[in-house]
């Protein structure tokens, strides 16, 4: 039901017949001065777009040539999405001119953009889960072909580009990588000249990402330009011919990413030198958090059932749980934090106290803290102030409530302390939490939990979708926490993050947790294999660190 609704909402991008979608030719007085180069497919001059309170794009010049894979690189909030949405006709620019194949063009709507030959694969897929692949494509593509004919066309396109896809499968049974293929094929059916990919690898295993790169390279060889948005520097260096780096709405520089090293790219992107998180000498102690034979049957076919999960974490240790999203991580976090109770009390124990049947509050009292993946709505209440949000966890521990009454003065000083110590930028602790940016909100959440000095800290996707500066700060705070003797568990899809933080890593696949491997024995490729479920081979390759 819900997924159906989100599908509907995002499908607006697709189905939007616009009677005025005829390109409007406007003569720009500067046209003869700033004519784009001859092989240029898309060229933008002086694009400016302001939103209330922020200039998202500030006179941006940008060019992409036919057959090129062009990276658009920048932190969150640098203006990448705005620029891309202008190209895709979703926004119209306040000022500036767009040239399409050398001609000034006005892209009035996504439908118009597709008609011109611009396709886009969004980060969040717009697919109806209850429908088949063909039905999903049929809905969105204005093609005369229907039914079997369309199925044949889907097969031929997906074969041509090495995108294996069965048109008759139901979408909900597809993996994330396969769903992305549906989106790509949907674009390819309209034979685009420019394909925009928004953070396509954020949901893929390294192997799936490699497959995607092959497809994109093949597309580029055939003359289709690819605009590739990402903040993963390594893959940009591997894949892209050109890179445009945005910072605070402006183009910082254009470069050839193969000629620049990752560190330099990162510094161009965030505008200052980046201090990698540092872990001092670690002293790991006794086991403080242990999970034994944790099982849980899935409630519906959309849930993942957890199968016999066991692991231990010691004091001072950072334990990583890798895996592609949707392999049971969310379900696991719920059972570890106590939001969902286990069948056996012995399934979870903190400091040798069994608490599998104990609720959230009881586990907090034993020293557990958790930061869920979803910030707004799960970790904090968006429509409540920062001060009220500190009551969500640990209000008893911090003297925030006494005799069932809430002590607002204590809460105010506590939230002020969080904001000061964790550099949360805000316009007052009385403002709604939803007004904070993702990075600041996450720092607030982390601070709220860390300042309770937990013995065990579980953080899920701690730096998902936040800027590099906040990311470094959060990584450092997790390492500091471990150094002070806490057991830290990081659940993440981001391998770089796990490799940088963790001592040991296990991989979650289809509701099962692999053996744990010490980080030094692992490479991104071997974790990738595990993420795809190839457990047996790896045991022979890498060996078990425990």
């Amino acid at each position, binding site marked *: 039901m819900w997924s159906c609704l989100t599908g509907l909402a995002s499908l607006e991008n697709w189905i939007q017949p616009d009677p*005025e979608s005829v390109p409007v030719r*406007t003569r720009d007085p500067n046209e003869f001065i700033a004519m784009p180069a001859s092989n240029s497919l898309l060229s933008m001059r002086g694009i400016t777009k302001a939103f*209330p309170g922020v200039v998202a794009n500030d006179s941006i010049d940008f060019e992409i040539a036919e057959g090129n894979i062009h990276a658009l690189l920048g932190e969150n909030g640098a203006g990448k999405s705005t620029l891309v949405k202008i190209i895709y006709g979703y926004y*119209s*620019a*306040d*000022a500036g001119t767009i040239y399409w194949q050398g001609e000034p063009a006005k892209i*009035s709507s996504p439908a118009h953009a597709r008609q011109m030959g611009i396709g886009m694969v969004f980060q969040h897929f717009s697919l109806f889960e209850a429908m088949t692949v063909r039905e999903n494509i049929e809905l969105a593509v204005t093609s005369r072909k229907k039914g079997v004919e369309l199925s044949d066309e889907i097969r031929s396109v997906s074969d041509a580009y090495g995108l294996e896809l069965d048109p008759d499968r139901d979408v909900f049974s597809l993996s994330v990588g396969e769903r992305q293929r549906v989106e790509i094929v949907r674009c390819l059916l309209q034979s685009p000249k420019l394909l925009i990919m928004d953070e396509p690898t954020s949901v893929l295993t390294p192997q799936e990402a490699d497959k995607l790169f092959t497809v994109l390279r093949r597309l580029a060889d055939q003359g289709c330009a690819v605009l590739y948005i990402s903040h993963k520097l390594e893959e940009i260096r591997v894949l892209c011919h050109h890179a445009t780096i945005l910072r605070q709405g402006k183009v910082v520089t254009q470069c050839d990413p193969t000629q620049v090293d990752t560190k330099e790219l990162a510094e161009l992107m965030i505008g200052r030198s980046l201090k990698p998180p540092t872990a001092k000498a670690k002293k790991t102690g006794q086991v403080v958090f242990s999970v034994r034979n944790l099982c849980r049957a899935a409630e519906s076919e959309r849930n993942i059932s957890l199968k016999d999960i066991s692991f231990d974490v010691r004091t001072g240790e950072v334990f990583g749980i890798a895996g592609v999203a949707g392999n049971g991580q969310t379900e696991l976090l*719920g059972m570890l*934090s*106590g*939001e969902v109770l286990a069948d056996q009390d012995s399934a979870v124990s903190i400091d040798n106290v069994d608490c599998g049947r104990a*609720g*959230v*509050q009881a586990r*907090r009292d034993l020293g557990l803290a*958790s930061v*869920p993946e*979803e910030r707004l*709505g*799960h*970790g*904090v*209440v*968006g*429509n*409540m102030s920062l001060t*009220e949000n500190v*009551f*969500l*966890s640990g*209000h008893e521990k911090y003297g925030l*409530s006494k005799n*069932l*009454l*809430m002590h607002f003065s204590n809460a105010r000083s506590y939230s002020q302390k969080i904001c000061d110590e964790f550099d949360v930028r805000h316009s007052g602790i009385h403002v*709604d939490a*939803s*007004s904070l940016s993702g990075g600041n909100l996450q720092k607030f959440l982390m601070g709220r939990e860390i300042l309770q000095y937990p013995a065990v800290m579980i953080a899920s996707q701690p730096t998902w979708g936040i800027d590099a500066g906040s990311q470094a700060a959060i990584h450092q705070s997790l390492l500091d926490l471990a150094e002070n003797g806490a057991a830290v568990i990081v659940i993440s899809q981001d391998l770089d993050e796990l490799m940088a933080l963790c001592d040991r890593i296990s991989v979650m696949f289809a509701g099962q947790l692999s053996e744990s491997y010490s980080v030094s024995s692992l490479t991104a490729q071997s974790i990738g294999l595990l993420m795809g479920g190839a457990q047996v081979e790896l045991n022979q390759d890498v060996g078990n660190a425990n």
Partner: protein
Amino acid sequence: MPIRLVARQTHSRLMTWLTPIIALVLSLIAGCVVFSLLGYPPLKSLYTFFLAPISDLYGVSELFIKAAPLAMIAVGLSMGFRANVWNIGAEGQLTIGAIVGSALPVYFPESDNALMLPAMLVLGVLGGMAWASIPAFLKTKMNTNEILTSLLLVYVAVLVLSTLVHGPWRDPGGYNFPESVVFQDAAVIPGILSGTRLHGGTIIALLVVLSVWLLFSRTVAGFQVRVAGLAPNAARYTGIHFNRVIWYVLLGAGGLAGLAGIIEVAGPIGQLQPIISPGYGFSAIIVAFLGRLHPIGILFASLVLALSYLGGEFVQIKMGLPLGIAGVFQGMLLFFLLASDLLINYRVEWRTSRKFDRARTD
């Protein structure tokens, strides 16, 4: 398109409090239209409806008498509405509260014990809670929709009352009217202003509203109810038990509705009758929303709705309009309120963005 709705980045606090006033003004305008269509002079009718009833002290005291049960029930309901528990059966909880509380004077008509009245009030609260516990039990145990169960139980409650006053509880000396005995003095809430019907129940209502305000803004339980309504996942994260919240808010609302019920029969009415409420339990839903689910807002909103009852009676007596006009006004008020609530999350833009672009680039 000359008008567009544009989503606001955050909801507008100003609009949260402005839309009730917008709704009120729109209802007045629509009211003018209704009166003219019915063939009555609109402005004179509006005057008779809204101003004439409160032009003297007696009228104002009647306004408070009617506002008291509305405010009490509405703050109870607002707790539930904040937690997304939709109890719309306050009318039934009111009725059962009145019945249970009345059992004392019905069975002990001679008693002049000083504890009579307090005991009646307590029984009233318990009666309302008991009636509300049925939807609470069904929702927590069987996941039944509380909107349906609480609403249907209203009709059951009214029939229970009817059975009692037509049967076992009928006053033997009451000339066969379907009414209970007239309560003895010890079972009647004393008046507080001579020359009017204003009684102690109004003060109780005011105290109830203020304590709910404190409960909501200052206690952990009130906080949990708000979190449960705003963000169910965050509530789970905090360790709030949803079933407990459902019980809290249903018992709270039921208890307050029951209290309002017993105050009605022990106050202005003075005995059990087949009809003891002109739909306070339902109008309180409008009061709760008009008052933005906030206790202080509810105090003002209850006066507005009380006025609609008084005005309805006035235009019936003075101009011969049907009593249903009060319901029409209440309905319009809720309708316009819900419609204008759109402005909290959206703003109206008069020019299209395309025009805007052209203005900028030309």
